[in-house]
C-alpha cells in the first residue's frame, strides 16, 4: 500500500503543480461563462464615448424629447461610472434598466439638430462621407409625415451609421421616437396616455415552486422561483461536473503517455506492478479532482453567499454531486489512462478519445430539454446511461424538481458497476500496453489487449 500511496502522491503533485493545469483551472470558467463575466470588464475597457449625432427632424416635434432623453442618459452613465469606480463592481446591475431599455454601451449622445426639414441627395452624400471619416457618428432623418397615423404605407425614419445594425444608439432612438409618436397618436384619439399606460400594465404571474410543509407544520407560500434557480444553478452545477471530469481525465492521459514516451514505465515496473501503478495514479488523480471541486465549490459558495442565495444549494445536492464526481472521475480517468498507455503520440489518441468525448458531453446537447422537463423521457434515459449520468442527474436534482428518489440511486449504482468493470478492463489493457511499442488504433484492438493480458 505504501508504494501505491507514493505513486498517488507523485501523480497528485505532478498534476496540480503544472502550469497547464493552473491555466486551465482559471481559463475554463472564463470560457464557459465568458460572455457574462467578461462583458462588464470589456465595457470598462471600451469606456464611455461621446457620439456625435446629426438629427434632421422633418416634424419639428422631437427636439425637446430627444434632448431630454440624451441628458437623462448622460446622467445615468455618469452615476454608473461613479458607482463602478467606487465599488470596483461590474456596472451592469439590474437597476440599470431605464426608460430607454437596457443599456449595453456606456456612450453618451451629443445631438445636433439640422436647421432644414429635409436633405437633398447631395447633402446626404456629404453627411455620409463625414460618417465614413469618423467626423460624425450617425445621421437620423425623421420624415415630415412620421406623426400621421394609420397610413397604408407608413413613413420610415432613417438611421445612418457605419454600424447601423448593431448600434445601441439606433435602439435608443427608436425607443424615444416610438414613445413620442405613441403619445401623440393617443392624444389625437382623445385618450389620456397615462390612462392607457395603466390599462396596458403587465399582469404579474409569479413562477412559484410547489408548496411544502415548513418545519413548524404550517404550509407557507413558497418563495418565487427565480431564473437563478431555474436555469443558472442547474446549468452551472452541470458545467462544474463537466469541468472537474475534464480537468481530471485529460492530465491522466498525458501522464500515461509521458511515462510511455519518455520510457519511464519500465523503470517503474522494476519496483511496482502495473496494478499498483494504475491504482496509485487513479488515487492521485481523484485527489486532484477533489482539489478542483474544492476550488470551484468554494468559489461558488462565496458567490452564492454574497448574493444571499445559499439556501438554493442543499447539502444533499452537494453529497450527490461528490458521489457522482468520484465515480465519474474514476471512470473517465481510467479510460484516458489506458488510451495514454496504448498509443505512442498524442495525435494517435485523438481517434480513440472522440467517442469518449461524445458520450461525456452528450448531456450538453440536451440540457435545455432536460431542464424544462426534468422527469421527461430524455432526462431519464440520459440518467441511466452511465457516461452521461453524472452531468444529467446533477442537472435534474439542481432544478429542485421531485426526481423519483430511486433514480439517483439506480443511476449511481449503474455508474459504479460500469466504473468497476472499466477499471478492471483498463487494468488489464494497461498491463498489456505498458511495454508495447505499437499503437492501438481502435477500441477493438484495445480490448483485444485486455484478453491478451
Amino acid at each position: 500500500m505504501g508504494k501505491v500511496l507514493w505513486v498517488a502522491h507523485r501523480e497528485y503533485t505532478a498534476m496540480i503543480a503544472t502550469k497547464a493545469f493552473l491555466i486551465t483551472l482559471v481559463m475554463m470558467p472564463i470560457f464557459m461563462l465568458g460572455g457574462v463575466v467578461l462583458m462588464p470588464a470589456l465595457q470598462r475597457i471600451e469606456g464611455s464615448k461621446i457620439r456625435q449625432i446629426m438629427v434632421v427632424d422633418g416634424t419639428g416635434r422631437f427636439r425637446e424629447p430627444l434632448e431630454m432623453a440624451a441628458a437623462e442618459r448622460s446622467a445615468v452613465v455618469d452615476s454608473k461610472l461613479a458607482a463602478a469606480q467606487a465599488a470596483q463592481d461590474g456596472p451592469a446591475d439590474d437597476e440599470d434598466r431605464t426608460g430607454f431599455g437596457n443599456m449595453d454601451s456606456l456612450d453618451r449622445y451629443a445631438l445636433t439638430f439640422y436647421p432644414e426639414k429635409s436633405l437633398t441627395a447631395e447633402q446626404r452624400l456629404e453627411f455620409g462621407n463625414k460618417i465614413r471619416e469618423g467626423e460624425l457618428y450617425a445621421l437620423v432623418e425623421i420624415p415630415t409625415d412620421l406623426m400621421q397615423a394609420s397610413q397604408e404605407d407608413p413613413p420610415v425614419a432613417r438611421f445612418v451609421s457605419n454600424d447601423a445594425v448593431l448600434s445601441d444608439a439606433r435602439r435608443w432612438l427608436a425607443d424615444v421616437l416610438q414613445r413620442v409618436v405613441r403619445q401623440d397618436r393617443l392624444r389625437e384619439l382623445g385618450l389620456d396616455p397615462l390612462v392607457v399606460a395603466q390599462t396596458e400594465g403587465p399582469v404579474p404571474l409569479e413562477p412559484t415552486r410547489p408548496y411544502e410543509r415548513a418545519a413548524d407544520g404550517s404550509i407557507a407560500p413558497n418563495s418565487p422561483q427565480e431564473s437563478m434557480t431555474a436555469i443558472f444553478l442547474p446549468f452551472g452545477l452541470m458545467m462544474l461536473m463537466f469541468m472537474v471530469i475534464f480537468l481530471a481525465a485529460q492530465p491522466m492521459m498525458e501522464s500515461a503517455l509521458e511515462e510511455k514516451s519518455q520510457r519511464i514505465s519500465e523503470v517503474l515496473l522494476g519496483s511496482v506492478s502495473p496494478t499498483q501503478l494504475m491504482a496509485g495514479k487513479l488515487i492521485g488523480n481523484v485527489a486532484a479532482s477533489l482539489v478542483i471541486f474544492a476550488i470551484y465549490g468554494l468559489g461558488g459558495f462565496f458567490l452564492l453567499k454574497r448574493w444571499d442565495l445559499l439556501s438554493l444549494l442543499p447539502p444533499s445536492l452537494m453529497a450527490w454531486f461528490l458521489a457522482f464526481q468520484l465515480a465519474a472521475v474514476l471512470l473517465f480517468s481510467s479510460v484516458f489512462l489506458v488510451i495514454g498507455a496504448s498509443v505512442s503520440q498524442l495525435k494517435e489518441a485523438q481517434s480513440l478519445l472522440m467517442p469518449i468525448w461524445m458520450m461525456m458531453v452528450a448531456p450538453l446537447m440536451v440540457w435545455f430539454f432536460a431542464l424544462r422537463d426534468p422527469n421527461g423521457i430524455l432526462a431519464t434515459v440520459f440518467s441511466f446511461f452511465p457516461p452521461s449520468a453524472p452531468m444529467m442527474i446533477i442537472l435534474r436534482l439542481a432544478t429542485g424538481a421531485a426526481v423519483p428518489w430511486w433514480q439517483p440511486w439506480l443511476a449511481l449504482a449503474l455508474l459504479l458497476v460500469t466504473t468497476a468493470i472499466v477499471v478492471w478492463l483498463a487494468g488489464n489493457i494497461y498491463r498489456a500496453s505498458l511495454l508495447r511499442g505499437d499503437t492501438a488504433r481502435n477500441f477493438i484492438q484495445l480490448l483485444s489487449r485486455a484478453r491478451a493480458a
Partner: protein
Amino acid sequence: MNQAPIVELADVSKRFGRQLAVDHLNLSIPRGSIYGFIGPNGSGKTTTMRMILRIYQPDTGRVTVLGQATGETADDRVGYLPEERGLYPRMTVRRVLRYLARLKGVRDPRPRVDQWINRLGADAWADKRVDQLSKGMGQKIQFIAAVVADPELVILDEPFSGLDPVNLNLLRDAVRELRDRGTTVILSTHDMAVAQDLCDAVLMIYRGQKVLDGPLAEIRRSHGEPRLRVRLAHDQPVPEHLPGVSQVERNEAGFDLTLTEPSAKRQVLQRLMDLGDLEHFEFVRPSLHDIFVAIAGAEASHNPTSFIESNGQATTPAVQ
C-alpha cells in the same frame, strides 16, 4: 553468508505470439558475482531479465529469486536499470531519485541519494530538472536510480550503451565496487569486450537458447583453440610449417600461431629460440568473441543483428 544461488531458472520458457523468446533455459547465478548476459540483440537477454524481475511471468518453468519462486513484482532487494530507460523530465534529479528509492521501500532516501550523487560526481546537477541533463549525466542518474535502495541484486540491461569513455570507466568502477561490497550484479551487453573485462561469469544466449555459461576464466580455458603471439627480432618471419602449429597469421604485433594442442607450446618455444632472437612470446587465451564465433558458427555470423558485426573492432588482446 548464504551460499544458495541468488537467482535460479529451471527449465524456463517464454513465448510472444509465434516467437519463442526464451527456450528451456536453466541457469544458476551465485551470490556476489558480476554475471554477464551476452548475445546479439534479440537473443532473449532482456526477456530473461524481465522474468527475473517478475515483469513477465514464464510460460513454463520456475524462476526463483532470493529464495522466492513467485511474486507479482520484483523484490525490493532487487534493483533494475532497464535498457529502455527514462525519468520524469520535469522533476529535479534529487526528487526523482528519492521517489524511485521510496518505491523500493526506502523510508528515508535522503542520505543515500545524496551519497550516490556525490559518489558519481553529480552534485552540480542534483537540483536541475531531468530534461536539462546531458546524455552522459542522465545515464549516471539512471544508474543511481537502480542502486540507490542498496539492493542485494542489481540487474543492469545494457548499462554502458552510449557512454563516453570517462563515464564508462566511472560506471564500470561503480559496478565493481558494488560487487566488492557483496551485491550481485547481472548485466547484459552485446559488447564482448566489456563482458570480458568486467564479468566473473557469463551466460551466452543465442535465439533464446543457452549456448554457454559459467565462470569466465573456465570458459576461456576450455573453449577455443590455444594460440601463441610471437615476435622475432629484426622482423624475422616465422616459418609456415612448424611442428605443433596448425596455422600462422601475420599481424601488426608479430605472428599469431594456432597450436594443435596446448602442450605444444614448449616445443614451439624451443624451436623459435633456435631460429633467432625471440623478442615476444605470449600464450593467448581465446576472446569471448572468438569463442562465440566458434560455437554459434556460420549461422551467427550471417545474422544481421549479430554482435559479430557490431563488435568487429573488439580486439582487446586476451593476454594471460
